[in-house]
């Protein structure tokens, strides 16, 4: 049943004076249940110890390994080789983010800036005494907050976004989802006026062109378009 598959991987080290962008092609024996995590590690161990890529959890939880697989941004750890009928898989690094080397991009730097811009923490004037019973939270609101807290910052929504590719200061669905998350959280005392200060412009909520790439590709199936549309309505009505 086993077959040969071909992996074409983009290679380039922008810090090297001699490196030039190109593809390397590797042929390997497919095994049952093979993912790109398994395949790429085999390549590194057996054919090309120089090939750079990022995995951490290899279980679809941490968001490290997003890359373009035959042009589509997705998590490499959750990509099965058997789903590619002709057995040819072309891998490229995510666009928008700064290239580190080969298939590895700097999402950490990008996300840190996003988190700082949306002030990604609870804004409250209350002081908590941790020896006392916790503040009660409506179970449904807690659940709603959780649903939006599931984002893993993999960067796929940014890589799949027309606006993000055109303008480098766009906050992306990941940033707008973060706003939606704190907006629904009953512990955060920020008002719509406060959120407007953070994202009420073309690099924020009004930059979205509603092309739906973010939601289509989101590996966590977050309701990004609904949230973005809702926040846009709220932000547009801020006086």
């Amino acid at each position, binding site marked *: 049943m086993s077959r040969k598959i071909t992996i074409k991987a983009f290679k380039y080290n922008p*810090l*090297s004076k001699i490196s030039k962008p190109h593809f390397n092609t590797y042929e390997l024996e497919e095994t*049952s*249940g093979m993912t790109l995590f*398994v395949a790429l590690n085999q390549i*590194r*161990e*057996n054919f090309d*110890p*120089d*090939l*750079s890529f990022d*995995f*951490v*959890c*290899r*279980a*679809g*939880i*941490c*968001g*490290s390994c997003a890359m373009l697989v035959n042009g589509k941004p997705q998590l490499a750890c*959750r990509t*099965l080789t*058997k789903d590619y009928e002709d057995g040819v898989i072309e891998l490229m690094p995510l666009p928008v983010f700064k290239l*580190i*080397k*080969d298939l590895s991009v*700097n*999402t*950490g730097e990008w996300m*840190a800036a996003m*988190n*700082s811009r949306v002030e*990604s*923490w*609870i804004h*409250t004037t209350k002081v*908590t005494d*941790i*020896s*006392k*019973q*916790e*503040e*009660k*939270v*409506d*179970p449904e609101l*807690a*659940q709603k*907050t*959780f649903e939006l*807290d*599931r984002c*893993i*910052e993999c960067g796929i929504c940014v890589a799949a976004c027309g606006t993000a590719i055109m303008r480098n200061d766009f906050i992306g669905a990941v940033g707008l989802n973060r706003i939606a998350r*704190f907006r629904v*959280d009953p*512990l955060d005392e920020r008002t719509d006026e406060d959120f407007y200060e953070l994202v009420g412009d073309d690099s924020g909520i009004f930059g979205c062109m509603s092309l739906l790439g973010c939601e289509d590709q989101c590996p966590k199936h977050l309701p990004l378009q609904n949230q973005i549309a809702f926040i846009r309505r709220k932000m547009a009505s801020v006086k």
Partner: protein
Amino acid sequence: MNIIYSDALIIGGGLAGLRSAVATAEKGNKTIVLSMCPVRRSHSAAAQGGMQASLGNSKMSEGDNEDVHFADTVKGSDWGCDQEVARMFCQTAPKAIRELASWGVPWTRITKGDRSAIINAQKTTITESEEVHGLIHSRDFGGTKKWRTCYTADATGHTMLFGVANRCAQLGVDIRDRKEAIALIHKDGRCYGAIVRDLITGELDAFVARATMIATGGYGRIYKHTTNAVICEGIGAAIALETGVAQLGNMEAVQFHPTPIVPSGILLTEGCRGDGGILRDVDGHRFMPDYEPEKKELASRDVVSRRIMEHIRKGKGVKSPYGEHVWLDISILGREHIEKNLRDVQEICQIFNGIDPADTELDENGIGKGWAPILPMQHYSMGGIKTKPTGESPTLKGLFSSGEAACWDMHGFNRLGGNSVAETVVAGMIVGDYMADFCLENEIDIDTKFIQSFVDKENDYITKLINSDGKYNIFEIKNKMKDIMWEHVAIFRTGEGLEKAVKELEELYKESLNIKISNKERFGNPELEEAYRVPKMLKLALCVAKGALDRTESRGAHYREDYPKRDDANWLKRTLASWKDGDTMPTLTYEPLDIMKMEMPPAFRGYGAKGNIIEHADSAKRQKEVDETKERLKAEGKGRYEIQDALMHYELQPKFKAPNQRVGVGNE
């Protein structure tokens, strides 16, 4: 040479490191966190089940408190833990969870009224009172008397990690990712920071600090089969070991989980079996009742893991390109149940193995199309950098450790589910706070010339590696190490196998010093990274294997087939490993645990085989003392805090030692 100064240097950006950073930053210390990956990608994110904290909010956790949590933890540890630390932990855990709630972790909350639950395979109705509506909920977990595990659906680690990372961002903690500490700077028993390699540019910098913390997680990746993320290679523990001054504790204490899916090693939650899923062998036969007629699939983690391996050894495993495995069958629970309650399990099976676990159809060989291939795999490292209860190394001043990287020692030889992710934040609070004080009280008194000598040494080492033109391939050595660990130092251990393992690992370590590197770049070179990591991993592997060989008893997850009894008379002690420069084998010494100081002297755990203990004479003596003291103080009308203090006083920062308020009982 670039020297970056800070007050607190924290190596590792998971929950333990980040929560410690909050503690040091809150006291005004300039804090730097170094992480190999963006911190929100740390392995902490993979914790699904939840965090133990005795809030006692919901119906099924009524009556819970620190005392009950403490007893569960000590039994779980098979009496291998430091009971003072276990007390510190249990007292602080409710505060930790309440603090996280205030930082925005969206804990699942209790809804008043009726809900149905499956308990002992029976459908049961639980009624929550109006009073607890909106308080933090908790679920059932193995080895606990009460439902104590607080959770956010099945993504607890993720939400906790983002909550703590958000708090760090708020406090302006200086987080630098894609940085790897490759050596500690130390002199005369004092730690001054670390030599750090930038994983993008390959540059070496010296990070110098008043206090240094290692919070780099476990060392699961020394095993072929593990649930751990690929970054869990134990490098933090290894650089502490390489100082020759700091010691590692109980490295042979390694936990295995029964049901990760093959080959990826991704966990399928214990909930699968909790809800009624069963294990089947190559013939489709349900084998657990043959071994454990009472508990069947729901015996404790270590027991189920051992039985699976035993059955595979009997030739009943299913052969696959990835080795032998058995099946986990949840299709018997019905599609509706799976799609509602085991959604993530279904997704993992679908994505990674292309099977639908709800599929009840059998193939031509009588094998269910929906059965998931599973095999017990390495899961958790109880061992790590030996610390005092303050989290500081007893032998290397100014070096702290917390989380899975540490042997703080609340887990002893077996960790309870829900206590690991709890430890990360609780240790972060306690140890981080002690470290913050250390920073305030201690100056940096080291000259730059000395720092330069450490940078030069590491630079020379990297240069030597790049130019190395020896015999062996580093990837092959790494894979051989993983095979040896899996073959001989895993769930079942024998003197013969361990001796072989130690010998072969030592040989591999020598080979790792004689490798050939094909890629000569100083940066963007994964082969180079393997070249300096693998010898470090081999040192850890040798600590585990040698520790297991010398420990001639079975305790918790450490199971010796040739010594199946827990031997309190001879082995109630902690293994300490150190490594002398130039050696090819660790030096092991032992630190006894004093029964006469224990609040809970050793006894039967309440599960597993009974009468399998070689008792220590002090156990009965101390138990008598404890009983008498309890009785006397109760008669005097003393409360549980006073009784506890009389039995075993422990130090803890007053803000953490304060009583925890609970519904219905106040501070009692």
